[in-house]
């Protein structure tokens, strides 16, 4: 009987929801997305559980065995202070998984606001900000970061977050601006403007939801680069400091002894690589699905 009843008109938003569900299904079928997500979840779990799951204390010298190569007792060996490298690698995801996402979120927030304003308002605001953005982009990230960290005078966690947010905001702003320029030509924006809506309302309530996909893609790409930047800055001495078990701190600490104790450097290095590659796989998969 119910078959005969005419289908009721689809409630508004249903189409969008179906499309979204379809995208999620395509994502879950993509092997690179699944692999990337699993690796990220693994490191997240390590970051949250920390020394509750590590076989040894990652921070204190537990054993009398100094600099022993990998064995069944110490899977990744021990460093020159006798700390278990396997435990330190597991615990080492915490700081970077805190700093990089916070920096990326800040950059995405400011970058989106900047991009909306410059792309929607155009005029002097656009010209001025575009020049500033060009100037910031002319200097490579690491060089700029080294200068700003030195200028802030502190090598604290917040200093790195601020630096990365400052450097990434204009890059995100440029992407958002380009997307907004395309949207601003469309009828719905014109309609909202003719209704007499104020510019901030049009920007944030009308345009913003429609430029979310490129912002999402840009944010995941930036997250990968944020991890890259934190690791590099830390390695050259401008980021996290010992005794943090952070991977890049471990590398910086031990690489002078690379020839004798390769395991103290190689395993944290592979951990960094696995995390950035995983983030990259996820962002690549999302990009492909959204661009379909």
């Amino acid at each position, binding site marked *: 009987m119910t078959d005969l009843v005419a289908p009721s008109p689809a409630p508004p938003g249903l189409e969008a929801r179906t499309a979204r569900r379809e995208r999620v299904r395509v994502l879950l079928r993509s092997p*690179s997305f699944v692999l990337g997500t699993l690796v990220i979840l693994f490191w997240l779990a390590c970051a949250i559980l920390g020394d509750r799951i590590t076989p040894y204390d990652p921070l204190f010298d537990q054993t009398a065995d100094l600099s022993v190569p990998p064995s069944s007792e110490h899977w990744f060996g021990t460093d020159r202070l006798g700390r278990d490298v396997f435990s330190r690698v597991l615990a080492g995801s915490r700081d970077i998984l805190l700093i990089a996402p916070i920096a990326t979120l800040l950059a995405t927030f400011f970058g989106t606001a900047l991009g909306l304003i410059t792309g929607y308002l155009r005029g002097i605001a656009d010209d001025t900000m575009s020049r500033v953005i060009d100037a910031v982009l*002319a*200097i*490579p*990230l*690491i*060089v*700029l970061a*080294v*200068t*700003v*960290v*030195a*200028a*802030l*005078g502190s090598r604290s966690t917040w200093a790195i977050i601020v630096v990365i947010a400052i450097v990434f905001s204009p890059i995100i702003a440029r992407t958002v601006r380009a997307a907004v320029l395309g949207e601003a030509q469309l009828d719905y924006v014109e309609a909202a403007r003719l209704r007499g809506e104020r510019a901030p309302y049009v920007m944030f309530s009308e345009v913003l939801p429609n430029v979310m996909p490129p912002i999402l893609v840009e944010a995941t790409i930036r997250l*990968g*680069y944020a991890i*890259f930047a934190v*690791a*590099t800055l830390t*390695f*050259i*001495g*401008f980021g996290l400091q010992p005794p943090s078990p952070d991977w*890049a701190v471990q*590398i910086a600490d031990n*690489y002078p002894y*690379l*020839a004798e104790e*390769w395991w103290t*450097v*190689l395993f944290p*290095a*592979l951990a*960094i*690589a696995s995390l*950035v*590659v995983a*983030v*990259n*796989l996820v962002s*690549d998969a999302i990009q492909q699905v959204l661009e379909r």
Partner: protein
Amino acid sequence: MFAAAQLLPGNVGRAVLGRDASEEAVAEYNREAGTDRPAVVQYVDWLGGAVQGDLGESLAQPGVPVWDIVEPALVNSVKLALYAFLLVVPIGILGGVLAGLRVGRPTDRSITVVGLSLAVVPEVVTGLVLILVFAIWLGWLPVTAQWEPGANALTQVRYLTLPALALVIVLFGYIARITRAGVVEALDADYTRTAYLKGLPHNTVIRRHVLRNALMPTIAVIATQVGYLLGGLVAIEYLFNYQGIGLMVLQAASQKDFTLLTAGVMVVGTTYLVFTLIADLLFAVLNPRIRYETAQ
């Protein structure tokens, strides 16, 4: 840039002379170096010198003109960057063309995914793995990049191979991706279909129509990557202990030698702008459409 350097907290004299120097010595140093004057006065003074090609003297090494430190570092960096470019450009273009001609097939996916994955791994990590494998385990190449003074060109190339390879691995993904996109677009274009319909053999179409059009955006992107390369040099030069512009900027920042830091960042920024300009010009020269538009 000057503003940022000025914000560096702490006393220049104190930083240069060390913690044990007396108060009087520090004050004396600051007076001589002019670092006790108001920031604006220092800036005007510096700008006046800079436009005349005088970048001032290093603060950490009094009496040494900044340019005397910048120049050899720049030469070293250019050697490394040039070597890396000579390697990566053909490899990257080849990879991109291969991927582009086999779009969507396993060759394409593996080149794209591997290339992009390698591109996001920090140079430090790739560099370390390269050192470990080729210098320590296999013993083929030296661990650091700094050769003995007076080494001949061949020895220098040997020393620079590992750092250059680290840069190649990072840049490969970008160049391959852009080339691939260009090839895909050209394969899809009307002129390619026309060429096929004219009855031209497949290889001729690929060579004369697809590749020629596809490589255009690639050349522009390669030129912009020079700027990126300069940033990548910081980590690589530090890792391989190579006295280039990246390591110099790093040392200047930690020694609070802000005349040197300013000069270093200026050189880097200028290089980037010059290569962006070259990219734009190349693009115009290679693309008749843009050339004619400008001419009209």
